[in-house]
């Protein structure tokens, strides 16, 4: 069943084409990676889905509903969670507080002026933290955590909205290699376990080929290839313009490491 359907998105900045008829679909429980060289239009495409950018033309349809050009907060309410390239958290709050805040927002209680925010949805927050393995750090200020742990908390924040779709912009950027694999595995498990679709961009080919169900290759705003990791790896054009031989080997290695 199609969860997200992106139809012929176009975006220009000045004279530069950042997205040209980008079209793809994503099923529930599926992990779809967008890859491509710098400036290929990954982030643009991503932000058009997440609501940070409005496409010039084209449609974004989430579970049958047109969400094109909606603001991020609206898109969030329709069941889209998101993480950022540089983790965005509420630095003045504790780890649990961050997740509780997301739960407060999800339950539409942000205008409540009576309840005690520190006690609200605490149990649910702890449960979400447990899913990402961070329940032990619940009461530490989030600023004290290692970056990899912050990323996990950010995942928990995104999950608080009970999303049908997760948007993850370079989820492993800035992390140590070991942390990367762990985070991607965690994401994949959650996605498959809960039937959440995941759309992510990634520079790290190991992560992409190890965990993506399908891969979309963007070059200069255009989709030049799409398919399973094997198909993409085998695509000669992808090899030529993007992966190169070394990338090809890395992709193989990653696949083996994940499944072997």
């Amino acid at each position: 069943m199609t969860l997200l359907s992106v139809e012929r998105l176009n975006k220009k900045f000045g004279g530069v084409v950042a997205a040209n008829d980008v079209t793809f679909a994503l099923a529930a429980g599926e992990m779809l990676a967008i890859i491509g060289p710098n400036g290929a239009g990954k982030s643009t495409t991503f932000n058009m889905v997440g609501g940070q950018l409005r496409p010039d033309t084209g449609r974004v349809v989430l579970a049958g509903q047109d969400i094109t050009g909606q603001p991020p907060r609206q898109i969030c309410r329709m069941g889209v969670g998101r993480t950022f390239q540089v983790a965005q958290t509420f630095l003045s709050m504790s780890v649990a507080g961050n997740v509780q805040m997301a739960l407060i927002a999800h339950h539409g209680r942000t205008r409540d002026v009576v309840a005690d925010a520190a006690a609200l949805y605490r149990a649910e927050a702890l449960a979400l933290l447990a899913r990402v393995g961070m329940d032990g750090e619940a009461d530490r200020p989030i600023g004290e955590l290692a970056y990899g742990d912050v990323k996990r908390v950010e995942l928990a924040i995104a999950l608080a909205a009970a999303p049908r779709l997760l948007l993850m912009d370079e989820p492993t950027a800035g992390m140590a290699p070991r942390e990367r694999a762990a985070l991607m595995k965690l994401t994949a498990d959650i996605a498959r376990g809960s039937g959440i679709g995941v759309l992510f961009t990634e520079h790290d080919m190991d992560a992409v080929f190890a965990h993506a169900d399908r891969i979309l290759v963007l070059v200069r705003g255009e989709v030049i290839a799409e398919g399973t990791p094997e198909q993409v790896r085998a695509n000669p054009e992808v090899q030529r313009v993007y992966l190169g031989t070394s990338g090809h080997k890395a992709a193989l290695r990653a696949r083996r490491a994940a499944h072997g």
Partner: protein
Amino acid sequence: MDIGFIVVQSLSGLASASALFIIASGLTLVFGVTRIVNFAHGSFYMLGAYIAVTVVPWLLEIDRSPTLFFVGVLISAIAVGVLGVLMELLLLRRLYKVPELFQLLATFGVVLMVQDAVLKIWGPVDIPGPRAPGLRHGVEILGQRFPAYELFLIVIGPAVLGLLWLLMHRTRFGILIRAATRDREMVGALGVNQAMLFTGTLFLGAALAGLGGALQIPRVSASSQMDLSIITEAFVVTVIGGMGSVPGAFLAAVLIGQLQAFGVLVFPKITLVLVFLLMAVVLVVKPWGLLGRPEAAAGRAALPEGILSIRAFGVPERIIAGLAIAAMLAVPVFGDTYMVKVATEVLIFALAAFSLNFLVGNGGIVSFGHAAYFGLGAYAAGLLVTKGGLPMEPALVAAPIAGAAFAALFGFFVVRLSGIYLAMLTLAFAQIAYAVCFQWVEVTGGDNGVVGVWPSAWASSRHVYHYVVAICAILAIIALRRVVYAPFGATLRAARDSEQRADAIGIDVRTHRWLAFTLAGGAAGLAGGLYAFSKGSIDPTLLAIPLSVDFLAMILLGGIQTVMGAVAGAAAFHTIKDIFMPLTDFWRFLLGASIIALVLIFPRGLGGAFAALRGRA
């Protein structure tokens, strides 16, 4: 209107614009590099004028030549530049690590000290400067006479602009200034000697202010009030132009000069508010000024300036709060009537300051115009009693409603901006409200205000009224504190910490900020209503910039990082003022010095110091 008049009037506008630009360019440079909103810039301008009226006549004694006149002007500018360096070395250098707002407060302390120092050194009488030799005469232009000196000023503005452009593009120092203006962290990363860069910038900025002041002496006499009269206008110019943009400042100065020259023909009474109207319009249309650029998002995550940890009261806090409330309630029993009066005012200011910190500390919404809502609340209450014939009780209900209503109206535009631009828009709205109260004489009584705003008979004794205030203020503070701890308060902190993240979890950031602005305006309005009845009168000083600055000083002294700091700050500030005012004519000097001392000793405010103490214990 004949063409000659239009040309000459336009030249008058250009001359004023030139003078304004020279001053504002210094302010915008200093802000661009150090991110300090330097209130003392107006003091540098004033010092430039005073030094010039001292040095220039002395030089002209030697020889009445134009050269010596301008040598004197340059000496004054350099002397002021050196004073700027002194301020950087002695004060600002110790403050780069503390939150930006504290730096602002410290420069405000400098303003107060310089005011009284000038009175002490040069005396209270205005000192007219000598006219520039060779430029005393008028020049005939299209049948109208125009002062030669102003023609010279018209030339010197663009000349300064040109020199600054060369400096910024052709020297290493200038290139560093531009780099720092665009991205402050990058300069630190490049291994540039940041201290030297800042000192140099302060020299340049202060010298430009001094030059502006010194160049004014043939036109206006040096007086001890010229600092505050210029500083708001200089801020307006820098904001309209875009903070940090020198060409923007030039454009804005020309715009303001022309508007003023022709505006007075159509609306002779618009002089009070014209520049603020322009600023409000520009900011609503262009949120970063004409030539400014959006603040680059911080590359790394930084702790926000404001309330950080929300902890429930522990035992010591409960005891302190209990004692404070008990003391406030006991004042009428043990204190004399004057003490009751002061305690009443402390309570009122505590509420106003708390409501401001609800915005600043909790929401990251820095308002420079919070007195507007305080004053509008006071006006609503006062006018209902005196003109509407209503008793005190409904008037006190109307005060917060009025405060909230105007906060909602102005806040609608304010929350669309951020940072310093947001602050300046709040200032502009406050000035507009001030001008309306000031000028709408038939209704508001103009600057005389309205008297006869006294409490109902049952509350007319100072003691009973103290209890009225105590109950209203304490309950309002408790209620607002509850909101801080409630999801709504947390949501505001979330939006302050990361707008992007807040948006992504489904929070409508603007709407929540707007509601917060409205709520804070309502609380300030209540405080204003209570104040009106305690004073018996209302007048425009209740909405004026100095009171807004006082409120800021209160929350900063108290510490914007703690929930209750604002209350302590209000009490401390009011007490300091009350001690110093009867002591000496130079109380502003002592007030300024204490503010600076407090900023240096408690860089996180009294609340921060207490929190540190608790943390250690």
